[in-house]
């Protein structure tokens, strides 16, 4: 990779040599650590559709302060958390349930399901005690499920295993089966112990598997509506999904299910009746899309509703798929209606944001998607990386065959899925798909983040606290995007930090209206006077003489 350095447009890195920077980032590490990190810190270079290999989805290095969370967080927190009508019981000590209680801002609208159930404001836990560690927790879990049923009469209960559950050998799944039989409602478990895999990513996979096994396909009712789609990997942070739903509605597109922002288990059960899966967050949900395609015959396409242009592009993709002139016209009409205010806002704000420099280290797709919005504001992405992405998220799905399954991934169940003998129904003939592909509509495809980034910028996987600090000291970016743990560390440097998990309690940022919100927030952040107060007058001018206000 060193050889590529000379060809890089150095302007993009404030005139700095990316190799030197990489060296600096690695210099303090013990040798072995440096060797490993060197494979995760990559200088981007796009040649055709080729980008360098980036090691990712590998173990977090102990002691280095990664941004990552655990398997449970990915399973319960991210994927299942936003479903309002399942009573989600955390089986384990109290902490895991407590920390994942309402902390992810998944908005939901219970008025859209007839029973109005919403358990998202509740935290359910078996609050495991030492006697359960010693004697096993199955009995308590069973009782907890019974109590949840008695108090809430939900239509489904899910159980999430935390670290000790696997170690002490509780058979969560058999307990769930037993209680399902007893209570007559859908009850299922997740073996999403925190130590599984190397990050949240393992939890997404486990979540996908179990929803697929226990829920999807349970309800074959074909609902009314044209252009039926499912939206996958959109978690309705700050109302993103509401904005996307608004646009769909306006376009006449029928959303059957969302995985899993503003979602209901009933919609999951019915989701295989849709005709197309749209993937927002490729990392967290691609498994479901792939399995649904195999079993039910729904194709999937990658979409992105972050960024006004990206939104327009995604809508056009959907229209292209359905091959319906009325839909195509409607989509164009909606774009024509929505874009003027976006362009007006850009015209007003861009002069103040143009040329400002951003860094994004977050999530498994957000570090990619949000570059769109910064681009719309004329801002430069100096460096980016994922917290829990895989190589396909960086380099594109074309590298999937070349990814070796390591020990940490091997322990995550890989479901073997076949076409359902009754329900499989290919929505498009292979010829039709081929025709659409030739028109530029890519199926089951994601190009990844790196091909869209400039040459010479640093792509860093699972960035450490140390590297974060170094980058900030070297570049002093105008804005940095990551999560809550990083926020104040960054801001202490006097650099505004935008949370891209919680949006700093703002949003929505998706769709057209979301873009407007984002522009305004970024304008506020990179142009505020409040970052100019860091030095006191006596620090700026320590000598003794001055003239003052009223004189």
């Amino acid at each position, binding site marked *: 990779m060193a050889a590529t350095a000379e060809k890089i447009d150095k302007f993009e890195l404030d005139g700095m040599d990316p190799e030197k920077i990489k060296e600096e980032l690695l210099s303090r590490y013990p040798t072995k650590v440096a060797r490993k990190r060197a494979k995760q810190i990559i200088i981007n270079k796009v040649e055709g559709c080729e980008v360098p290999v980036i090691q990712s989805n590998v173990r977090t290095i102990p002691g280095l302060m990664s941004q990552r969370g655990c398997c449970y967080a990915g399973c319960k927190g991210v994927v299942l958390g936003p479903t309002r009508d399942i009573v989600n019981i955390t089986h384990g000590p109290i902490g895991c349930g407590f920390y994942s209680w309402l902390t992810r801002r998944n908005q939901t609208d219970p008025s859209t399901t007839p029973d109005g159930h919403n358990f998202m404001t509740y935290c359910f836990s078996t609050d495991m005690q030492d006697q359960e560690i010693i004697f096993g927790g199955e009995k308590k879990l069973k009782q907890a499920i019974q*109590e949840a049923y008695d108090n809430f009469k939900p239509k489904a209960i899910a159980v999430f295993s935390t*670290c000790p559950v696997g170690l002490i050998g509780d058979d969560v799944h058999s307990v769930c089966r037993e209680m399902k039989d007893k209570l007559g409602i859908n009850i299922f478990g997740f073996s999403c112990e925190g130590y599984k895999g190397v990050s949240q990513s393992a939890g997404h996979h486990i979540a996908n598997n179990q929803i697929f096994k226990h829920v999807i396909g349970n309800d074959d009712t074909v609902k009314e509506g044209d252009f039926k789609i499912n939206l996958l990997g959109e978690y309705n942070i700050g109302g993103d999904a509401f904005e996307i739903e608004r646009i769909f509605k306006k376009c006449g597109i029928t959303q059957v299910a969302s995985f899993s922002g503003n979602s209901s288990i009933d919609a999951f059960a019915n989701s295989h009746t849709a005709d197309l899966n749209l993937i927002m967050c490729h990392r967290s949900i691609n498994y479901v899309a792939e399995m649904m395609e195999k079993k039910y015959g729904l194709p999937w396409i990658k979409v992105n509703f972050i960024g006004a242009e990206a939104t327009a592009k995604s809508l056009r993709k959907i229209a292209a798929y359905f091959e319906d002139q009325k839909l195509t016209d409607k989509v164009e009409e909606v774009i024509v209606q929505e874009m003027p205010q976006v362009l007006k806002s850009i015209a007003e704000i861009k002069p103040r944001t143009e040329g400002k420099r951003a860094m994004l280290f977050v999530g498994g797709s957000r570090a990619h998607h949000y570059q769109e919005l910064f681009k719309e504001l004329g801002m430069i992405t100096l460096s980016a990386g994922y917290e829990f992405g895989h190589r396909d998220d960086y380099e594109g799905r074309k590298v999937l065959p070349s990814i070796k399954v390591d020990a940490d991934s091997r322990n995550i169940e890989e479901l073997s899925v076949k076409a359902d003998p009754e329900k499989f129904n290919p929505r498009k003939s292979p010829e039709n798909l081929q025709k659409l592909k030739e028109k530029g509509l890519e199926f089951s495809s994601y190009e990844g983040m790196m091909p869209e980034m400039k040459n010479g910028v640093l792509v860093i996987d699972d960035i450490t606290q140390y590297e974060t600090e170094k980058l900030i000291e070297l570049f002093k970016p105008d804005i940095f995007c990551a999560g809550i743990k990083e926020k104040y560390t960054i801001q202490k440097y006097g650099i505004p930090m935008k949370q891209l998990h919680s949006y700093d309690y703002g949003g929505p940022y998706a769709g057209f209206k979301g873009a407007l919100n984002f522009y305004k927030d970024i304008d506020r952040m990179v142009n505020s006077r409040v970052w100019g107060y860091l030095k006191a007058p006596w620090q700026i001018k320590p000598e003794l003489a001055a003239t003052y206000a009223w004189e």
Partner: protein
Amino acid sequence: MLLKHTTDEIKARKALTINPAKTCQPIGAMYASLGIHGCLPHSHGSQGCYAYHRSTLTRHYKEPVMAATSAFTEGASVFGGQANLLQALDNIFTVYNPDVVAVHTTCLSETIGDDIPQIFNKAIADGKVPEGKYVLHANTPSYVGSHITGFANMTKAMVDYFAVSNGHKEKTVNIIPGYVEPADMEEIKRLGDIMGIKTIMFPDTSKVLNGPMTGRFKMYPEGGVTIKELKLAGSSKGTIALGNLASGAAAKALDVKCKVPCQILDLPIGLQATDMFIDTLRQIAGVNVPDAVTFERGQMIDIITDMHQYFYGRRVGLVGDPDQILALAKFLVSIDMCPVYIVSGSPAGKKFVKRLEEITQEVPYEVKISVPGDMFLFHQWIKQESVDLIIGNTYAKYIARDEDIPLIRFGFPILDRVGHSYFPTVGYKGGIRLLEKILDAILDRIDRDSSDISFELVM
């Protein structure tokens, strides 16, 4: 309704906790560790723990919360976490250069049974702990006790690892402040200072978790008790432990280990508990209480007597950590308020519940206490008969909104307001702040609910 499924029909539960009023040990240990100067807390377990703890503490303090993790994978869970911890210590000292690393365990490493002292010995033998640097640890299984227990255990570990008796008694007095805010710790120190007493306070998160914005990030901010002070604590004249649950263990350990006598008091929240603290401090140190302290006391009483009519007889629901709710209940009763529902998720023992019952015995309503209990039950009680005020952490806002009851945010975590880390609620000044908050809550509500006819200018 935010909690639409909560009804006033209470069904006995013994297995399912709903809306907990506690969290797990490790986060308390992490918080305590941050109160040692130059310390990097380290979570020995899966990385999810450290991520959750850092996130929660960060949301509460809106400050950097630095910590490391052993980042267990399945392999470590099977074979034990020694290799991870050794690698972590090496990386930490090499890259982040702390003075001390404070390791706490998790449910994972505890279930596995990792022997931390043995791993420390190996790390030291392997040269992974540089000269002049320190490690300490506490066992904090998440399935025992609560975040308060974790705090207590890590605080005790400070004694176990560092306190030594130098053979003669120094003039210092040790103060173990309990699981309180940085501002509270600062206030407790200030009271010691104006009484002319040299205090050693541990842990001490002031200037760590309420630090300044300066344009420079300091991984190890200026606050925190130093290892030198912790050593010296073994030779102090005495120890005052504030809050039995959070501070008792360390105080007793210090007595056993170094023969430093201790007094275990309630948290100095409210008039009488602060009186007790000041009076004990002056007796241990053998000093007179300066007029400045008595003056602050008088100011607090002045507000109590001036505004008594607004306190009198109001029903309060109280949910929080044991040491806090005990002191608060006593404070509320002392101003003629009526704590009627008292809940903590943390187990605190029968004696504790008995003391709560004693404190509230003159309250002219049925008083319901559940320790340990959860916020779902607390809410159900409120559904059965409402209260005039809720005092609890941010999660209580869901109840407050559903039931249209004013809320005073108190305790941990507070995720949606600032102020708690800058202004104390301990001591007389803290008492004045609490009185102000109670009055604001009550008077705002009176203003809101008054008819146009009965709306008051003067109150």
